[in-house]
């Protein structure tokens, strides 16, 4: 957790200390907090990675990242009072003379009689340290997805899959992935056949299934035209499992394909974007790269079988049988890189913050 406070923020530390006698101050001081003199009255400003700005440009500094959300609150020091209710807002009222320090319900459930009261309440919703947008700890995630393979110019797969994850904490998850693939030769394959008179050896993948481990080290915000803020996270995923491939016969009119069930591993990246007010959905994109052992169609499986018996050259007639062809083929390393889009649904659909705002 890293928080740099300044300006109005600096003036708020005593307020926070009053409102949260133990937890807030402890969590603030436990981090690499740095307090800079600044301009009272600015709402908040961005920081430049801790690099001090010259005098006159020091309307610094605030990193609005709270990595500690979702974790257990720090231990009480000196037997302090229990933390305030999870999810409650600690009001940050910029009108110093009217500051009451009273928490406000998120969404403003108080009776707001006058416009002045409403403005005051909305100002109270301005927080110095924003909480992490989505907490995933002890939640299930179901992510239907569809994608396209991008690494093979000769066979293109369209994929439909489902990820099922259980988040051990906000950073790590274990899960299962199942993907069905629909593969077909690309125009590039046919182009080479027409131009060079060559028939390429290629396989299509039928399905993939794996057990995964997800680690979520990236967290960020995106300002969209500086008018809207979107939170996102990035995950690294590794997994291992099985898949089935099928050869695309070079001479489809003559030969039946054979399939191979094999094993492999994968690694990838997943980005999750969270909608502003929905606690159970994220919109995702990702890249998953499988590395596996695969059997390709033997090169001497073809129509020129006449001279094989006499010379040993040409195509082996025994390989017309797909089982024989499969037995003749050796395993080779293959890759399958899929770019996918998905939507995650989190269960339970709501979560509670364990640290105060």
């Amino acid at each position: 957790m890293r928080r740099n406070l300044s300006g109005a923020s600096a003036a708020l530390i005593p307020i926070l200390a009053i409102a949260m006698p133990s937890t807030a101050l402890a969590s603030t001081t436990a981090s690499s907090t740095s307090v800079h003199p600044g301009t009272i009255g600015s709402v908040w400003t961005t920081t430049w990675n801790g690099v001090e700005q010259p005098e006159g440009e020091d309307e610094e500094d605030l990193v609005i990242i709270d990595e500690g959300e979702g974790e257990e609150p720090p231990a009480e020091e000196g037997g302090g009072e229990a933390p305030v209710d999870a999810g409650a807002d600690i009001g940050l009222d910029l009108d110093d003379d009217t500051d009451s320090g009273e928490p406000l319900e998120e969404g403003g459930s108080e009776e707001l009689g006058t416009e002045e009261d409403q403005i005051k309440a909305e100002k109270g919703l301005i927080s110095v340290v924003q909480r992490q947008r989505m907490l995933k700890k002890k939640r299930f995630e179901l992510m239907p997805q569809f994608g396209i393979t991008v690494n093979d110019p000769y066979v293109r797969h369209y994929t439909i899959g489902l990820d099922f994850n259980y988040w051990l904490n906000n950073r790590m998850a274990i899960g299962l992935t199942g993907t069905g693939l629909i593969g077909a030769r690309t125009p590039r394959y046919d182009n080479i056949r027409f131009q060079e008179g060559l028939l390429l050896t290629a396989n299509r993948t039928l399905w993939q299934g794996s057990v995964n481990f997800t680690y979520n080290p990236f967290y960020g915000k995106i300002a969209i035209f500086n008018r809207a803020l979107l939170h996102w996270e990035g995950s690294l995923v590794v997994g291992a499992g099985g898949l089935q491939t099928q050869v695309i016969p070079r001479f489809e009119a003559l030969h039946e394909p054979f399939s191979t069930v094999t094993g492999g591993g994968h690694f990838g990246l997943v980005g999750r974007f969270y909608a502003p007010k929905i606690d159970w959905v994220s919109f995702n994109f990702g890249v998953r790269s499988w590395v596996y052992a695969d059997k390709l169609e033997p090169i001497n499986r073809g129509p020129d079988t006449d001279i094989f018996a006499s010379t040993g050259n040409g195509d082996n007639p025994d390989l017309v049988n797909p089982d024989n062809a499969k037995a003749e083929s050796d395993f080779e390393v293959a890759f399958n890189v899929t770019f996918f889009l998905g939507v995650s649904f989190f269960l339970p659909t709501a979560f509670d913050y364990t640290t105060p705002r």
Partner: protein
Amino acid sequence: MNTRKLATFLAAFMATGVGAGAFANEAHAAKKKGPLEGEPIVRKKIQLRKFRFQLTPYVGMSLSQPFVHMGYAGAKATFHFADWIAVRGTFGYGVVPLESKLLKAINGGGLPPGYAPGTTDPDLPVNEDNPDATVCQGLSNCRNNGNVDNPAPLLHDFRAGLVRAQWQASVDAVFTPFAGKLGLFSAIFTEYDIYVFGGLGLVNYTKHYDDQSTSQANGLSEDLSDAAFCQDPALGNAQNPECLLHPVSADEGVKVGGSFGGGINLFAGVPWVSINFEIQDIVNRVNLAGLNTTVDDVPPRVNGSDRDVFHNVTFQLGARFYFPFKAKRSE
């Protein structure tokens, strides 16, 4: 009857519209404007791009070439009129050509090489009565008897037509709607932005090999309207079968197309340099192998209809430098 229906519909529509309008007005009257409504979400935001010139030397590699992968070195020059919009020019020159696995397979026996001029066909026994009958005439390799039925061109004809993307350039409008902060392992925090771009792209294709086609080597006419079309003096003015059936025309030159893509800048702790990752796709029409693809021209010819849409996708990694070094802040 129809008139009554129409009148009923219009009345219902108007009633609904009036009702909705009244409701909207009522809702509008009830809603009070908040103090932050319409305000930027970040004040005093450091404007890392606005009115700054950016120079990005980069290295790149092609991702989609079937025959010759290319490593590029180049630069991009960008100027942002606002934090979110810019124009730029790019240029990358191919400095490291790498032959693909497919091209290596073609060179390694995928296409028949034929037999050399002045030598006899290895697939045929020597004719004692006429030893010159199977000697390859002319100045280019000849097709051996075992490959007469092979629809593939001879290797030297393929090599004569093969082109590679030697350099590429583009002029683009750059759109940067996303900018923010990124935390990595709770230890590294940096500014970043994500952008997309689109514009005009140019790709210059040059021959990958110096090989000459059968027609070029033997000085044969490839003009269909010419009476001497593919007539080979070395064959007694008979038509050379390679010239006739496997025409070659390397599709060299600059091809114009569309350029689009996206990228990300990760600032390196200071506001005047960032690490730039980018995927660029320049789409144009080209015939990479310079061979005939279509089946509706008899005899086969290489022309514009043999070109197909091709995506020159490159991944680029660069360091982006911002001028002036200091960025201003928003209000």
